[in-house]
């Protein structure tokens, strides 16, 4: 049995205005189907333990999350080792419903951007209104990050989790690192810690 490894071996950048880190392997299951279908909803809720997310949001249970990706797509996040079991539960719950559930854990990568200036870092790279009043914990956003596609959400007020394609992890890590360079904070939003 081979050990799953991340794309960058857990790379960390700590010397800037925010800490950029490649997170350990993360289980991800993509579910495509009609999200209005009660069987699809019940299967997603059953396999994740989380509530059904509204448009553009992410919900979290004790050990899993459900993210709204598009009107016909959800992403289930869970510990990497639990994917086969949860996927089987999902398939069972879907039954004959017209839907597709696939393990995409190894096709994606998870990074985090942490710190009071984390908003500045993301705002430099994405065409998203990231002001504290507009983007808040609980929201989920798929967008463009520099030249590639990415998705992110905020588990807490000072933490971003960024999902990207695994083959683009180095690129995403590099652009985040550049955007987080020391002395590059924009200062457009008040410091949540109250400092200067």
């Amino acid at each position, binding site marked *: 049995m081979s050990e799953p490894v991340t794309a960058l071996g857990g790379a960390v950048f700590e010397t800037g205005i925010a800490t950029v880190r490649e997170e350990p392997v993360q289980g991800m299951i993509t579910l495509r189907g009609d999200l209005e279908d009660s069987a699809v909803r019940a299967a997603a809720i059953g396999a994740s333990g989380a509530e059904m997310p509204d*448009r*553009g949001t992410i919900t979290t249970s004790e050990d899993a999350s459900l993210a709204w*990706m*598009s*009107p016909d*797509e959800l992403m289930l996040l869970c510990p990497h080792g639990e994917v086969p079991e949860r996927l089987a539960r999902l398939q069972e719950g879907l039954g004959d419903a017209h839907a597709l559930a696939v393990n995409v854990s190894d096709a994606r990568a998870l990074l985090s951007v942490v710190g009071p200036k984390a908003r500045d870092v993301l705002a430099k790279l994405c*065409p*998203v*209104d990231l002001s504290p009043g507009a983007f808040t914990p609980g929201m989920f*956003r*798929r*967008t*463009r990050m520099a030249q590639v*596609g990415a998705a992110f959400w905020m588990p807490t007020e000072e933490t971003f989790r960024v999902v990207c394609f695994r083959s683009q992890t180095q690129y995403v890590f590099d652009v985040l690192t550049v955007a987080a360079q020391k002395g590059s904070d924009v200062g457009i939003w008040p410091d949540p810690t109250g400092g200067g």
Partner: protein
Amino acid sequence: MLILTCPVCGVTSEETEFHAGGEAHLTRVGPAGDEEAFGDYLFTRENPRGVHFERWRHVYGCGKWFHAARCTTTLEVFGTYSAQTTEPPQAIRDRISQKRPGWIWRDFA
């Protein structure tokens, strides 16, 4: 910069999160059409200064197609609406009429 709101997922973003898909509301000309009509269908496009209707795709977001009504000179967006229609909804036309009285685009006004 062109700022669009995807009517499918509700996200508002600038044009780099989307991808332009060309002129809207084209009617396909099949084997029954004559050469001239088929040539027009393939190649003849509006090139207006002012009100224009386009197809767009939310390529970095939900991935869905939609329609946008906008002004080519000011980049003002009058509205976005479902891709599953063959003509602009009346509400969008009314909004354009308020801002650009007397506008005409192909057979729509």
